[in-house]
Structure formats: C-alpha cells, structure tokens
C-alpha cells in the first residue's frame, strides 16, 4: 500500500461522513429519481427566492430582501446535492429573485453571481477541508451531539459555520450583489452601505434561524433514502 492510499484509508474510516468528498460522484450515472429530484429542488429554490423577496413587499427593491430566507435552503441543498444545489442557487436568484420580481434579464443574470459563490465555496471548504478535521459536511454537528456514534464538536461547528457562511461568504455575496447593482446603476452610491448592510443582515438572520431547523429535520431522512451526493454530481 502506497503512502497516499494509506492516508486515504485512514481518513475513510476516521469519520462517519468520510464518503462525502470532492470527487465527481459515486462512479455511476444519475438515476431517474435523482434526475427528477435535482430538477424539482431547483424549482423549489426559484419559488423560495421569489417568496423571500416578495413576502416583505409586493415587489422588493432590486431583488434585495431584508429577510432572504432562501439562503439557508440553497446552502443546505448544496451540502446534500453538490453542484445541483449550486446551480439551484444561481437559477433561483436569476428567475425567482430577479425576473419574477421585475429586475430584468441582464441585471438578474449579473447580480445572481452573488448567490452562486457562497454555496460553491462552502461546499469546497466543508467537503475538502473541514470534513477531514472532524466537522460534518452535512452540518448535523450544529444540532446533534453524536453522528453515527461519533461525538461531534458543536461549538467548533457553530464557530466555522458562522465565520465562513455567516460572515466571510455572506460579506462576499453582499459585496458582489450590491456592487454589481451599483455598477449597473440600480443602487445609488450614497445608499451603497445601507443596502449592503440590509443584504448582509437579511442573509445572516435567515441562515442562523433556518439552517438548524432544516438540518435537524431532514438531513438524516435524505441520507437514509440514499439521496445525499457523495461528490459533486452524484
């Protein structure tokens, strides 16, 4: 056994989530159930994006919401379904928080990059880095003391969750979203930081409240049904 294989074997048995990696997938084509599920979850994110923006007002200003409750949904979906969750974040923003609230095609396509980046980076950080350091890439350690007999580090899980998703990626998302809208002439310069703060706070609040509810209620169910992606695609 070579050195690389030894390390791989060691990490594969170390944690119950070691099969969730940054590989392409399980080495088998997408099944019909998965195929439908990936399409339906994109539809769900489109509707939730639309509701996130329109529930507070009939048509919110420039697709920016003060309580963007779809944010934790696409983060959790990305952790479950890899690239499909990332696609849903982008398409959901283009259609649900863009076109359907009247933002127009070009601004929607441009500012939705702000929703594409956080799930992409979060997926890579958890699956590629933190999973090998004892943190569950499906985020069950946020709410559970044990995952499949493995004692979790809840304080550490919350620390990384807030730092990476809530502060760093959320700030990047707000900067991209408001920055692009500013460049397109949709947000006035003097109101830049006001909208930036609204974006940041709206996403953070939703993420902290809804993610634990979603993870606790559904992750084990999704995993039991064999629907969690082992890699990016399947």
């Amino acid at each position: 056994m070579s050195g690389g294989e030894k390390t791989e074997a060691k990490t594969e048995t170390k944690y119950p989530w070691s099969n969730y990696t940054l590989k392409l997938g399980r080495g088998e084509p997408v099944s019909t159930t998965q195929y439908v599920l990936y399409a339906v979850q994109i539809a769900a994110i489109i509707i939730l994006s639309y509701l996130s923006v329109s529930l507070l007002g009939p048509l919110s200003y420039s697709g920016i919401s003060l309580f963007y409750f779809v944010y934790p949904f696409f983060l959790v979906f990305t952790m479950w379904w890899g690239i499909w969750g990332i696609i849903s974040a982008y398409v959901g923003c283009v259609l649900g928080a863009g076109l359907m609230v009247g933002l127009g095609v070009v601004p929607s396509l441009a500012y939705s990059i702000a929703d594409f980046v956080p799930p992409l980076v979060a997926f890579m950080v958890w699956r590629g880095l933190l999973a090998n350091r004892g943190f569950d890439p499906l985020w069950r350690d946020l709410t559970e003391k044990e995952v499949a007999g493995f004692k979790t580090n809840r304080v550490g899980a919350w620390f990384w969750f807030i730092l990476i998703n809530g502060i760093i990626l959320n700030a990047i998302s707000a900067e991209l979203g408001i920055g692009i809208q500013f460049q397109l002439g949709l947000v006035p310069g003097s109101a830049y930081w006001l909208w930036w703060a609204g974006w940041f706070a709206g996403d953070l609040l939703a993420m902290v409240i809804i993610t634990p509810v979603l993870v606790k209620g559904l992750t084990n169910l999704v995993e039991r049904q064999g629907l969690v992606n082992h890699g990016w695609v399947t």
Partner: protein
Amino acid sequence: MEKPKEEARASKKYVCTFIFSMRTGTPIEKLHVITKFLMIAAMSVLALYMFDIPVSKGGPDIIGLVLLLVLVFGLLIISRTAKHLVSSYLILALPVLFGEFFWWLFFNGSLPGAKIVFYLWPGFLPIGISTLVFVGVFSLVYYKLRSIGWSLVAGLLLWWFTIMPSSLSFSSATTWARIPIGVTYSFSLPQWSTTVALSKALGYGVLIYTSFLFLLTTRDVEIAGALRQLRLSFRKSFFVALMFRNLNTILLDYQDIKIAQTARAANVIRKSIFSKIIDLAQTSIPLVATMIRRSTETGVALYARGFEASKRVTDFKETKRLSYVDFTILAILAAFLIYEVILGHSITALFTR
C-alpha cells in the same frame, strides 16, 4: 410535420404561461421564444444604458425611456395580457417605482449644477392639483383595498410629493388657493436630481414590465422545445421542462402548508417578528419532505414509462421555427442597440436640439 404542430397549437384558445394565461394567435404568441428572450434582454440593456448616461454627456435619455415604456405596454396590449397585468402587478409595481425615484432623489448628492428648492412644508395648505391627487389616490386605494388607513397613507404620501416641488406649490396654475398654516421647511438638491431620479424610475419600470411581458407570454414547453432546437439532448431539455413544470406545484405546496399552519391556530396570537420567522422556518420541513416524496414518485413513474431505455423521443409540439417576423424584430432591436449604445446617440437629444 410542421402542419399538425401548428394545428395542435391553434386548437387551444388560451394557453397557460409562467404566470396567468395567454390567448393564442396573437402576434406575440407567434414569436419564437428565443426572439422574446432577446427582445427583453435588448430592452433591459437599453434601459440600463439610457438611465445611466452621465450628466457630462447630456444626462439620461428620458424620451428614449418613455418610448421604451410605451413600446412594452403596446406589446402587452397586442399580446392581450394587459388585463392580467392591470389586475396584478401594475399597481403593485408603483410603490417600487416611487421608492426608486426617492432613493435616487435623496441618495445621489454627487451631481453637478445649480440647486433647486424642495418643500417639506411650504408654510400653507395648497388647494389645487395636490388636492385632486389626494382625493384621486384615496378613492382608488379605498376602492381596491377597502381600508381607510392604507388609503390615507397612500393619499397623503402622494399629496406630499406633489407639494414638495416649488414649481407645483407656488405656481398659480397648479395651486388655486392657499390656507396659511405654520412656517416653511425646505431643503435643496442639485438640479439634475429630479431628472436622474425620474429616469431611474422610468428605466426600472421598463425592466419590471419587460420581465412580466416575458413571463406573461411564455410557456415552459416553449423553452424546452427551443433547447431541443439548439441541439441540446432530450434529457437536458426535459430537465428544464421538469423544473418549470414544478414551479406551480411547489407554490401550491407552500400555500397549503401555510393554510395548515393557520388551521392549527398559528395566527391566533399576535406574535413577535422572531416568532413569525420561526413559523416560516417550520414550513421548510414539510415543504422539502413533500418535494423529496414527489421527486421519488415522479422518478419511479418516469422509469416505469421507459425514460431511461427510450432512444427516440417525440419532439415538443410547441416547438416553432424562426420566421421572417422574428428576424425583422431582431434586426430592429440590433439597430436600436447600435444607435443608442454603440454610437452613443440619445433620442432625447433629437428632440432638444
């Protein structure tokens, strides 16, 4: 093969679109979905460009934006979907447009030029156009909502907007009588502020109504059919169709869950914002669980119908060919884009020269 498809499409009087429905046989319905997409994309590029022309280069193209807005409403009328817009988003979009106007009026202080005075209160109660605005808005909102509170808020807000500019509150043409009350409170803004703010509101109006033009006149299967025409595999185009077909179902699921929450007395006690957010979070579990269950069932149904084994599939009957009308529209849009964006001409400049 083209004729039966045309007949199948013509056999229906109304077809379901992304939002509401559309009458078949209208010129907009006959357009190819790619043309419609490029049309609204070109319009949004034009709107973004027109309202962002710097003051040093002559300022926003207000007349161009008005023409674009008229064009969008014209297309909505031609497509016979204007009634859906009137009954839904036309009025709902107005607060957004007013919001846009005021954000740009007050948060755009870096504009050059002389300053003009606006009145928070002109020192008298003007009787004139502003009074008519108040009565009109109050009556309209009360007729629609049957709420005195909201009617008063909307009426007073718009009334206040009409007394703010000195050209309206101090002109004898718009103010017919004055009842002195209190002292004057005023502030000044750069002269260009109102022009820029108006152009932003008009431009945003173009963006909103072009988006709705697309959503009101496009069917999900048209997109799937167009993807097939673009030589995408059936699996990929059906994936897109599946996604769009589930939008309505998921919205209905969400509404059912909210009704179930209400039936379980979720709204009986007046709750804090935080509790309402928790309620919202609680809808996520049944929503996602239903989504997974439905996906599994649909997956099994597709499998049972030989989805994985099928080699030859029937094309979507809604697939159309690009006609000369499509090409003409695309050519006009391209010419308009070249004139305005590439060559840098302004329609307003044509009238003000």
